[in-house]
């Protein structure tokens, strides 16, 4: 039955199958994976390095060569992926190749040892007894005392005792291999085909459903994310303590969900995850606070607050409008330009209008000789505070394969626990007639790992059986005649 699991090939396919399922191939493949992985950590990789840094590190010819061979992005080249696929195939083949044996072993435990087996089993002992039945029941009591279950095996020509524990341990290695495949499938198949990653920048009050992908393309998701606020908290020494964003999910005009996300605590909606990745200030003005005082010195100064294009009345006749904000200005040929979007050297442009005089005056802060008309303004302005807009940078990812991965990890943990710490132990007790014609109890045992600890356990079993036999006066002088090996046990 189990035999049919093994494919029956002939000729070349058979050879391929044999190569694929051999442990040697596995080791060679692992070594190749290791070598290419090392190369991938030593050679700068495109996905993680700025283009400038790449050009600085390698000569143009070298870079062309590295790019052509895929060495600058090893982990995403088809040949590295092919290598991983080959490793997976190798695991599958090796498992299939070995599985029938293990399965037979698992499904049809060897309960009644024959003479040949009894002869070669390394861990065994013989205890003289007077009567088969009395010997076996003593053994049963002994196993019970040691909390081991026993089973009486009755065959046409013999009857004996069999006791085993943790047979599942024989299958553990397949659990580990299956878990590894599950992880590969989650990463290499599901996420490679259906997963994606991108970035979304939002400023408070805005919503978007356009995710910018790494290659610059836009991806539209079926719902929009609105940012209701973002901010930063710092420690006393100024280092960042917390970045947060209040996000809301909007689907066809309705708000479906809300969450304040922080680093390490993303928003998840329909399998798409939004992570707090960056935070900062845009080059756009949010609000400026100014002290406005009449230029002629009469009257009192007032504090006003202006947003972009907002007009504020200063008195019954005069009003001021904010028309321009330049985060990082530079003056050239009588004009004001923005050098960058960093708020490094800001300038604001306001228009002060007087209805009565029907005049508009351009006011610049700071003053721009030749451009501003600050001198003719009825008010002077003194900047107090400048608030530029905030933005929050969200890493967006969709990784449906991750569930296969976490399941694989749990499965692997279970499998490894069984592989390393759960020992399949078996004991057989058979009444035999020894070389000198006396009746004796043959006791044998094996364990599939940790054999030195098993030796101790075996000794305990033998001693316990002897103890159970002792009350019978006939066996008082009985001495265990122990033949015991120390190394490999025969299956």
């Amino acid at each position: 039955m189990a035999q049919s699991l093994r494919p029956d090939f002939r000729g070349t396919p058979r050879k391929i199958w044999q190569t694929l399922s051999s442990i040697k191939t596995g080791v060679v493949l692992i070594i190749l994976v290791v070598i290419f992985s090392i190369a991938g950590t030593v050679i700068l990789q495109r996905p993680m390095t700025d283009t400038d840094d790449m050009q600085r590190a390698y000569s143009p010819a070298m870079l062309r060569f590295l790019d052509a061979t895929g060495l600058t992005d090893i982990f995403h080249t088809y040949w590295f992926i092919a290598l991983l696929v080959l490793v997976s195939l190798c695991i599958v083949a090796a498992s299939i190749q070995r599985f029938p044996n293990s399965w037979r072993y698992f499904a049809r435990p060897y309960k009644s040892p024959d003479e040949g087996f009894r002869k070669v089993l390394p861990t065994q002992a013989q205890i003289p007894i007077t009567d088969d039945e009395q010997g076996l029941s003593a053994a049963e009591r002994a196993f019970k005392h040691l909390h081991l279950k026993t089973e009486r095996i009755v065959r046409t020509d013999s009857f004996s005792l069999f006791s085993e524990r943790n047979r599942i341990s024989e299958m553990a290695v397949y659990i580990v291999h299956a878990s590894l495949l599950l992880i590969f499938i989650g990463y290499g198949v599901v996420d490679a085909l259906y997963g994606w990653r991108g970035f979304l920048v939002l400023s408070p009050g805005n919503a978007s459903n356009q995710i910018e992908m790494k290659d610059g393309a836009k991806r539209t998701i079926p719902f929009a994310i609105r940012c209701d606020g973002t901010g930063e908290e710092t420690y006393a020494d100024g280092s960042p303590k917390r970045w947060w964003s209040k996000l809301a999910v909007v689907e066809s005009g309705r708000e479906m969900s809300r969450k304040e996300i922080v680093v390490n605590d993303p928003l998840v909606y329909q399998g798409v995850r939004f992570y707090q990745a960056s935070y900062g200030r845009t080059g756009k003005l949010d609000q400026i606070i100014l002290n406005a005082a009449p230029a002629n010195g009469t009257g009192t100064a007032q504090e006003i607050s202006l947003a972009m294009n907002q007009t504020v009345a200063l008195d019954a006749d005069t009003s001021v409008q904010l028309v321009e904000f330049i985060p990082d200005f530079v003056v050239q040929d009588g004009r004001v330009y923005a050098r960058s979007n960093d708020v490094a050297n800001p300038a604001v442009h306001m228009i002060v209008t007087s209805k009565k005089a029907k005049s508009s005056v351009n006011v610049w802060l700071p003053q721009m000789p030749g451009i501003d008309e600050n001198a003719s303004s009825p008010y002077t302005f003194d900047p107090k505070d400048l608030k530029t807009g905030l933005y929050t940078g969200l890493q967006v990812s969709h990784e449906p394969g991750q569930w296969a991965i976490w399941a694989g990890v749990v499965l692997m943990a279970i499998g490894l626990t069984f592989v390393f710490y759960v020992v399949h132990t078996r004991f057989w007790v058979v009444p035999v007639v020894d070389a000198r014609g006396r009746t004796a109890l043959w006791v044998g045992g094996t364990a599939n790992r940790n054999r030195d600890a098993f030796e101790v356990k075996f000794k305990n079993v033998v001693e316990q059986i002897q103890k159970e036999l002792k009350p019978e006066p006939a066996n008082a002088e009985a001495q265990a005649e122990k033949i015991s090996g120390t190394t490999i046990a025969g299956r």
Partner: protein
Amino acid sequence: MARAKVEQHPATGTTLVVMVGLGMAFLLFMSFLNVVKSGNILSEANLLFAALVFYAGAGALYLGFGVTGTDAYIKFASLMTWAGLLANTGAVAHRWYEAGHPPFASIYEMLLSFVWTLAALTLIAEKKYGVKVIGTVTMPVAIVGVILMQLLPSEVRPLVPALQSTWLHVHVTLAMLAYAACALSFALAMMFLIQDKVKTEMFLAATSIFTVGIYAAVLTRFERGGFNVIAWDAENKSEVFISRGVRLFVTIPDLGWLMLLVFAAVAAPLVLYILARVKKDEGFLAVADRAVFISILLQSMALVFFLLRVRGGQYPSLDAEGLYATSLAASPFILAALVGGIFANLLYLLLLWRRADLERLLPDADALDRITYKTICIAFPLLTLMIAAGAYWANRAWGSYWNWDPKETWAAITWLVYAGYLHMRITRGWRGRRAAYFAILGFAVVMFTFFGVTYLLPGLHAYA
């Protein structure tokens, strides 16, 4: 120091114990006077100092035991290790309480936990497996660790947002346990090789390759005869950065030549060993042993010069105008490498002189082989879980569970190497020497993942 003493009065038994005891009593008394003055007994610094004193005492006695085999030393050495571990536990607890998180967040805190784990494992290996000499190896490492801690910035730093996660603690605890188990398997494999009668010259080759590797790595900082180290801002207690993530290097003049000279000196035994193998002339090996001795002297000199020049003075930089100071705290890995090189060569000399004693003191080869395998059986699941916890955490913090970042890739490589070991052992029945070599290779990869990746390769995993 302790060795020199014992060499002159071999196996007098109590002499070393008394001397170490007196020395420690003196040190503790002196520091007690200081403590009384400052009125603060249970501070972290004091606890660490006490731990250092106890570890140093234990180290001297373990070394004495390694050299003479006097059983009485071991009892006292164990006692001192216990005392040191107690003080160390106090320091860890104090730190934990002060910082409000387990001590895993900076190099200083990692070292604190690492030394603690090392001392605990030493006691376990000694009591449970009867590997008594292991303290000879682990205690000096612990001492270097505590000394290094004195140099590193130790104030409690608040956690940056990415590190504010329970998964940090899970991930790092697993990493520490896994790496400590790997270290133990390495030490056991080494002892197996000693017990398995591997020729002493094999160890000569191994230690020489190790130190040559160290100096090759150190020489990556060679700059026109000078030696590049990271500039240190004493006021802020941090490295100087030119821009985000780019550290400022300063060049200590002429130190590079010295390092080059030492490189030649540590390469000499290896060259002689190869000559001996090629020409089949044992005479070269005797010369090689002497060359090891000379290389230790030169290495010590390099260490002293490094210490002196790094601690005082200001140096120019290629990337910025003016002179900048540096500090040992800015170059913990170089310091660790220099000390490690000397230490490896000293271990070789110990083996050379006292091989017979060591063989008598160690458990038999079969037992060592089995224990090595068992420690790897513990290390491998821990490695697996460590990688999984790291992936899960990365998924929560950065939105991707696997990035092929160098640290991740090397963790995977480590995992593969040990997976290879297990397959060879279980299906191919590899035992003994081949398995021991594999265990040593595995640990070398672990060390590279732990230190080398941070120090030599670029990457995201910038915390440790």
